[in-house]
């Protein structure tokens, strides 16, 4: 079993990291455990340090039955028609269990390594054009013509449709905290995906999205222990060595992502955003390490509080991932489902897990 420190991102980005190598045994074990734990989907993160997300979803999707795959993909890497052809093909091979997390691209240096030289704002403008073409292809109302500033197609047509039991196009999560990201989420997505913050801080923007028909999903880390004190202690034990911290900080500060900048500021300014929401791991593990910690009862109540302000989905990380997910499925999720019990199943909050090649599940 790997410790939290051993799976942190600094190590993942090294070219010798096993995170670069497909690990079917570990992935399938994690994926099947996720199915058992009542997890709806796994988020496959995209970077140049890891294998391609669409192909991972294809391989792991064949070895699972109910789990869905939220495939993160950056734009600027392929033509929209090709992207839709790959996603539609994948949908037909794994019973439609695929959704998309569209990332405009958070690191300028990494984007240039892929051949993409647009700046932050232009990347969002392109994303809107890209997703418009995708949506028109999914609508299947005839050949698609589109001439934008960044994307152009004429007479685009794909015979392979998106194939899922109840959908004709995938759910799309758009992540990012910037004004452009929120605009893109409102116009082109089924859900805005953002980092967790306190319910008070989130309430206004959540209701704004919900009024306009877009769901809100939160990313967070979780540390659940029998008592609050034990959870805090477990969190502190995950703080890494100082040297690793410096390196991680260097990677993070090279990013032009609004999400990261805000998360880092939160970590520096306050550390604790509430009694149960801790930013202490963010400088070391990235923005998705904004962590909820506490006892099962506390955590279940907090999830329900987010539900009350309109949040519908959560994408959760843990360190180590597998153990924390098992605890969540066993101790927290049943409390949430019990409280939701009276209401309709379609009204349940949706729990997903982040899934990464460095999950250490071996």
């Amino acid at each position, binding site marked *: 079993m790997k410790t939290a420190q051993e799976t942190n991102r600094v190590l993942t*980005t090294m*070219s010798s*990291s096993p*995170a*670069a*190598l*497909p690990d*079917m045994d570990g992935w399938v074990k994690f994926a099947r455990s996720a199915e058992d734990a009542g997890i709806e989907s796994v988020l496959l993160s995209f970077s*140049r*340090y*890891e*294998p*391609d997300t*669409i*192909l*991972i979803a*294809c*391989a792991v999707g*064949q070895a699972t039955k109910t789990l869905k795959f939220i495939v993160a993909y950056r734009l*600027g*890497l*392929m*033509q*929209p*028609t*090709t992207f839709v*052809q*790959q996603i*539609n*093909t*994948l949908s*037909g*091979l794994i019973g439609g269990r695929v959704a998309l997390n569209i990332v405009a691209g958070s690191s300028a*240096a990494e984007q*240039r*390594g*892929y*051949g*993409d*030289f647009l700046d932050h704002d232009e990347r969002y403008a392109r994303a809107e054009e890209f997703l418009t073409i995708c949506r028109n292809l999914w609508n299947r109302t005839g*050949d*698609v013509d589109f001439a934008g500033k960044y*994307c*152009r*197609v*004429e*007479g*685009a*047509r*794909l*015979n*392979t*449709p998106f*194939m899922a039991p109840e959908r004709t196009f995938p759910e799309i999560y758009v992540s990012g905290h910037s004004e452009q990201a929120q605009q893109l989420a409102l116009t082109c997505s089924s859900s805005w995906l953002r980092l967790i913050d306190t319910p008070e801080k989130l309430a206004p923007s959540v209701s704004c999205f919900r009024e306009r028909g877009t769901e809100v999903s939160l990313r967070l880390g979780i540390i659940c222990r029998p008592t609050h004190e034990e959870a805090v202690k477990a969190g502190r034990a995950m703080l890494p060595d100082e040297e690793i911290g410096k390196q991680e900080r260097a990677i993070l500060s090279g990013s032009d992502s609004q999400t990261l900048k805000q998360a880092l500021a939160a970590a520096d300014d306050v550390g604790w955003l509430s009694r149960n929401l801790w930013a202490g791991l963010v400088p070391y593990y990235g923005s998705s390490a904004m962590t909820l910690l506490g006892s099962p009862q506390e955590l279940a109540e907090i999830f329900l509080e987010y539900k009350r302000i309109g949040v519908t989905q959560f994408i959760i990380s843990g360190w180590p991932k597998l153990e924390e997910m098992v605890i969540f499925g066993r101790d927290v999720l049943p409390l949430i489902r019990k409280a939701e019990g009276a209401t309709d199943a379609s009204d349940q909050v949706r729990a997903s897990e982040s899934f990464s090649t460095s999950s250490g599940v071996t």
Partner: protein
Amino acid sequence: MSQPDALKFHWMLPKSGEVAVGARQTAKEAVRFRVESTSSDSPAARPQMDGWLHFATRAEEAGIESVLVALNRCEPDPLIVSCALGRATTRLKFIAAYRSGLMQPATFVQQVNTLSGLIGGRIDVNIVAGSSTTEQHGYGDFLTHDERYARAEEFLAVCNAFWRRDDEVNFHGTHYRVEGGKINTPFLAPDRTRPEIYVSGHSEPSERLAYEQGTCLLRVADTPEKLQAVVARTRARGLRVCLRLGLICKPTRAEALMAAEALLPDNRDETTTQLKDDSQMYREGAATAGSTHHWLSPCLWTGLVPHYGPVWTTLLGSPDEVADAFLAYKKIGVNEFIISGWPEVDEVVTFGREVLPIVREAERRLTADAGNHSCQVAPTT
């Protein structure tokens, strides 16, 4: 155990839904399925694993090395299909066709490398510059034929730099620009660090592209006499040569001829090649349309070419005749073949049972003869 320079035989992956598991399909029905596969309601658009797996199992048993998985807007994506089918098989390799202009080379390398790690390295690529302007426009590609080749060359140059695992890939071309490119996932295979790169096409730019960036030139079969020069030229540059052809093998030549005649469309004016408006290969194919003489040689038939295009050039005859024809190509330096049949399953089974053993036996004799011959040569020190 085959000889080190043994001919490699690949097969075209049947289209999705083409293989009717547990049902009989006539040769003519197989032709119709393929001809009609571009229609939007064809089952060819929807991935269907059971038919593919049925074929893949027969192909592995027959001694087929790889399947070529096509790319076009009417069918599922070949990289994703190779992944699904590769996970469900153990020996068969996949030659995934892809075009430059559809994705960044770094992304293509990341996908191919990921796939290699998922299916034991059983992936090669066939780079096509794109044969139809209409189809390319739908993919967002508005370059002309010659520009597409120039771009394909840059595309493969960047891919090859990633596969060499240069520290960091930097490239500044007309069509692609990469700065500080790095893909951590390597190409993972037991015996190599990059895939074979098949470059297909009959034009001068395509041949040059193969020389500069490819490892194998892929073209449609012609007579050994006609191919001799290009094969010699290509082999001299250190590349392999692979031929595409259809195959009709029956117990006797007369039966093979009858089977071929039966494939001709009822409507003798039918043609599906107009979409491929920007391909040298298809222009050459169309040039044969007016001709009533449909034989390049006594065993090489072009009767279907005017209707469906040059890749329907078909080798036909008895097992001995067909095996001899393969060996004649070997003699001029051809290394590999990618075969189609009607129906694919029936023909691949016949090939594995009737033809391949003759070819392998002849190759053993050739090697033995060459061995004996070299023993007779006195060492000249």
